[in-house]
């Protein structure tokens, strides 16, 4: 039996419900800066079609806006003459496009096999506890930290491995966790 919340059919012609799949709004129009636009233009010359430039364009958007909002999707879709739906499909396919605002430091704990065996899970929980009981993906009120769990970072030899934004951090254990967090502040 199909079940779950039954949104009444008569809710139309409204909009589809905003759920975990829905693109969040940032509440304002977004636009690339001059430099970003120049970078984007250059990017286009490297691909046979505009569509092919979608992933790097989204990276620029993420760098510019911090995360991919509904408005950012519309903006990028407009730049590349794609349908916003198509762009949103791509954003949701990949896990490294942020679909909500993240803190200054996006702390990504690897919990794949090597790190897991070396206690990553515990460090991950401990870290969230230390930051005020953050839920996975939640950001601290001061906007500094977001903690998430990721798959193998290809740092298995330095397990448990952590990545903060784009930087690798090796062997983060319960013992050096405090020092690690301190180093981020």
């Amino acid at each position, binding site marked *: 039996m199909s079940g779950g919340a039954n949104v009444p059919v008569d809710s139309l012609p409204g909009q*589809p419900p905003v759920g975990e799949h829905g693109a969040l709004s940032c509440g304002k129009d977004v636009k690339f800066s001059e430099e970003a636009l120049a970078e984007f233009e250059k990017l286009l010359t490297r691909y046979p079609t505009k569509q092919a430039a979608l992933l790097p364009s989204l990276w620029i958007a993420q760098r510019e806006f911090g995360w991919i909002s509904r408005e950012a999707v519309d903006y990028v879709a407009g730049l590349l003459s794609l349908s916003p*739906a198509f762009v949103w499909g791509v954003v949701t396919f990949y896990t490294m496009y942020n679909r909500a605002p993240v803190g200054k430091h996006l702390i990504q704990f690897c919990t794949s096999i090597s790190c897991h065996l070396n206690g990553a899970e515990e460090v991950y929980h401990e870290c969230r506890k230390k930051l005020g009981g953050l839920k996975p993906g939640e950001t601290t009120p001061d906007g500094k930290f977001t903690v998430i769990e990721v798959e193998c970072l290809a740092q298995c030899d330095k397990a448990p491995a952590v990545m903060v934004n784009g930087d690798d951090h090796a062997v983060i254990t319960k013992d050096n966790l405090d020092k690690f967090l301190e180093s981020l502040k």
Partner: protein
Amino acid sequence: MAKVTVDGREVVVPDNGNVLEACRIAGVDVPHFCYHPRLSIVGQCRMCMVEIEGMPKIQASCTVPVRDGMVVSASSEKALAARNATMEFLLINHPLDCPICDQAGECKLQDNAFAAGLPVSRTSEPRRQYPGYDRTGIGPHVIADMTRCIQCTRCIRFCAEIAGTGELTFIERGGHTIVWTHEGKVLDNEWSACTADVCPVGALTTKDFRFRKRVWWLDKARSVCTGCEIGCNISIEHRDRQVFRFLPRPNPDVNDYWMCDYGRFRAEELNAQDFTRPVVKDGGSTKETNWGDALERIQKAVDEAIKAKGAASILVIGSANLSTEENYLLNSLFRTRLGVPNVEFVVDNGALRRIKNPKAEGNQEGWLKGLESAPNSRGAVAAGVTRALSDSALEKLSSGKFTPAVLYVADAAFAKKASDPAFVQAARKAGFVAVHARTKNALTEVADVVLPVASLSGKEGTFVNSQRRIQAFSIAIVPPPVVRTDMEVLLHLGKRWGVFDTRWTAGDVFELLKKEIPLYADAERESRAVAGYPAVISPASAYDSIFSPEEAEAKLIAAAAEGRNG
């Protein structure tokens, strides 16, 4: 051309064909979901697995182009096992509640489970669910239920490739994948309900038809949409004297596999029948009467008018909504037999309707376009009814310069004009007003005689569309007692002046058309060119049933000869 052997049978397939098509031509029905002849090939569903000699791995037949000398085993043990496995994977997360699913009966998953699945289920785990994304409106006409989606992407490709609007996308991935719109957008384009047609399962269904009738109860009749001059081929699906829905009836020369939402959702409008008996005005009051009395009054009024003021004092209004047969009878009776010079019609231009069919004759930039909001202006002209121009009697009537002694309107809803108060007022000044009508409007209010006629679902005949194709439509529902078709009305009226035989059928009148109208000279009423293709069992498998294997082969070969991608 490539010679391909499928399960021991050798067939010839054009080089641009694929193995799935080759199998079909060989008469082997390989089950499939994502393949659709008008959408790009994605090899998404993995249902169409076959074994091909020289290829170590089992292949998705829709993705493999044919090669000369290919040997395909479509029914080998390995192929069947692969298809069984695909089926089993699909069913792991399928609700399996066909009895409460509206698609049951025209579901490819159900059909293919029967044809290619295991007879038992080896899983008992709870099925994946999508709270908030099940049984939810995704657009004005379509209800989405993502628990039933099998991720074939046909709907996504329809929106992107045919409609060109691209509203739909896959969101998330893996076991979380759903089809949805971008946040804040709805699935709303001119053909949005076609997504429900191409959806093989009950994941997309139309709001209008959903849970109204189990599809196996529906009877089907070949008909033609009257929404615009394109004349999409449709099947009128009905039961118990009630029309439930229209489906596009595939026709590669006209509407291909599609029809627009506007045309589709006019279906239930056919059920309205305000007039079930002839109505006449006696002094100030109206009363119902019988056909004899009603026609008698018309005959008297016409004869008197001709005697007193001549035939030019009569105005007869035909209609682009009437079949060519009906317009022809109208014209033969009034113009040819009674000498009335004013037998005219007008047609409105409505919203522009479009149907994507790059291969159809007369397409513009890949589209068939329809502006006139009636199906048969060309047939009316061919039948001899005059298109009303600025100096015509009909226009003079509207502007008050001509007051006919008798006004005979063969379709009370012939154009928007019919309910325009100024026109109705002018029309009322006529000495006598008779109209054919199914539903009430301003004109029927003032008429001296209203003759109750059947809707499209009760009639048969032919229309001539914007490509000048003659297209036949047939009776779905016998009209209610006493109500007559426009053709019957005209035959009975004509009989009073000794011109027609009331036993004539639309077929008999068609034979007359062939003799008298050059456009119809070579037409064969039962031919594919005129009658179109049969209604399909299920819209999602339209491709399966539109051509017999022999026809599919012929089509493909013809396409190859013309260098088109079949």
